[in-house]
């Protein structure tokens, strides 16, 4: 039996959290959400999600610094992290972090999340 994939959404915008939550849950993904990095860290430790979607503004840091912060705070295994942020050119993905420049389109973002979940062996069911 394949376990239900889980995604933690960390974004100060309630609307963004709501849109991602709705779209992912319809694809059979369990979601958790937080508006700030502090409760997100706690949730990450407690629930060990498969993937984290993190808006860099939620931590008040630069996108790569936000990614490092999560990686540092969380004991292994580390989830894959998708960082949403404002940058002219997204930094190259690596070390468990993907970068998506804002403003982004939800369709491609959701597809990227699905691919990453599949890559870690817990792909969602088709919507």
């Amino acid at each position, binding site marked *: 039996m394949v376990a239900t994939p889980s995604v933690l959404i960390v974004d*100060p*915008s309630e*609307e*963004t959290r*709501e*849109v991602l939550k*709705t*779209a992912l849950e*319809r694809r059979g993904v369990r979601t958790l959400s937080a508006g700030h990095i502090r409760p997100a860290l706690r949730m990450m430790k407690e629930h060990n999600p498969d993937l984290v979607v993190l808006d860099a*503004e939620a931590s*008040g840091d630069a996108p790569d610094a936000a990614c490092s912060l999560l990686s540092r705070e969380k004991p292994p295994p580390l989830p894959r992290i998708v960082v949403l942020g*404002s940058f002219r050119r997204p930094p190259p993905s690596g070390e468990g972090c993907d970068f998506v420049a*804002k*403003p*982004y*389109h*939800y*369709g491609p973002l959701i597809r990227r999340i699905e691919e990453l979940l599949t890559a870690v062996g817990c792909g969602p069911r088709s919507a």
Partner: protein
Amino acid sequence: MASLFVIRGNDQGVRFELNGPVLGVGRDSSNAIQLHDNEVSRQHAELRLVDNAYTIRDLNSSNGTFVNGRRVQQHRLQSGDQVQVGSTLMLFTGPLQEEENLSDKVDISSPLQQGDESHIVHSMPQREGSRLFDLQAEVPEGSWLAKARSNLQVMYRTALAVSHTLDIDQLLQRIMDLIFEWVEADRGCIMLIDPETKKLVPKVRRTRKGVRADEKISISKTILDYVLERNEGVLTTNAREDTRWNPAASILQLGIREAICVPMQGRYDVVGVIYIDTSTTPQEVLRKGGASKFTEDHLKLMIAIAHQAALAVEDTRYYSAMVQAERLAAIGQTIATVSHHIKNILQGIRGGSYLIEMGLAEHDESLVRKGWAIVEKNQSKISNLVMDMLTFSKEREPDLVPADMNRVVADVVELMQARAAECQVTLQYTQAPDMPVLVFDPEGIHRAVLNVVTNAIDAAAEASAPGVVRVATEYAPGECKVRVIVEDNGPGIPPEQMDTLFSPFVSTKKSRGTGLGLPVSQKILHEHGGKIWVQSAVGQGARFVLELPAVLGQTEAHSLAPDRTA
């Protein structure tokens, strides 16, 4: 902290803070001071901190490094130095020096203190200072003392003339007027070197009364070249006999009898020339026994005046460049903040649209409604942003009409109830029972109160206890004031944020705030002759008071009239 501020070039307005022992200057992104200038080498120069001072060293760049207009290989920088690399001109400000604390060594004693029995024996208004150089009757005319005094007076007046304006044309006009008061010139002009074309451009022209004003002033190019190339002032009483001159055709043709042409040498460079001339007829020469109108003393003083004028021109240009650079920096910051906010709104609209699309595909009306609610909310956000920007950007007179303050505030509270509920904040409203009809701009005050209430709800949403916002109106007839008070039990405002609370585009709400709400509210209150202030302590919420003069509507004024006379 030491800094380099770009006052000319593609990066105009950018301030580079110098916060390392060795900092690279160049086009390459590896440089701490990266300049977007094709005339700058990839690794152009480096700044090195030694003994709390920066030294700039050229790294064999193609186009060289210049400090104050001079090419340098290495130069210890001082505050005010202008550093040019490629076509980028930067102003250096040095690190703060530790200043000696003189407060223990200088004492301002009170009248009651012992030991200070000084009393005023003479006082003099500031304007009297200029009479210091007035010629006294006992000083013989033509004596060295009279000349020295006269020269000092001219320099004093020049210093005054150049210190009272930031308009270069006006400044040069004053200088020329002063020269004509002091020397018997027929014609004169001041030409400045255009910073872009490097050519002399006439800025001021003047002729003595009695000399034809429409007569063209033709200045010998030979003289101008000599003055500019050698950076020397020249006096020519008779050009044909002057051994320094080639009997150049231009001088012979122009027939200059006496002329003075001096360079305007500033701190960094020659910025232009001042030229005066006079013609003396043979009859006059004979009558005066051959005496020249222009002397070496005139030349010396003209050089000194030109130097003063050049310093003022440089200062004015520097000031204008600074203002322009600061303005560009402010525009850049404004655009960045507004763009960021619009980007967030766009993200919201995309989210809403995505849900609508999903709902339509899945024939799920609830999803369409959810998406549409997000789109509508963001429409309202962009509408508010535009309204705030319009209110903030233009000077306007409030549209004063008799209106009900209680009603205006009630409308705001009603409008914000949904948002308060969404944030799980209780929004309460207490109306002043005795509020008369007042004259104010209801639309403006609605916006001012709306911005403050919106902030209060956002703040209360972050409260550790259940969030509460209390709104109240207050009428104080004794003070002729009306107040709207908005209190929240949010986390409060840290003291360090108090100073910038009403500064435009400074938001403590990160992506949620435009940084325009409070400045707009303040502007609207100011337009009404009122004010807005805040009381807050960290952990104890905030209390905003919007106060404006209570101007009674005509009906109210009439109904109150008998009471006043009673």
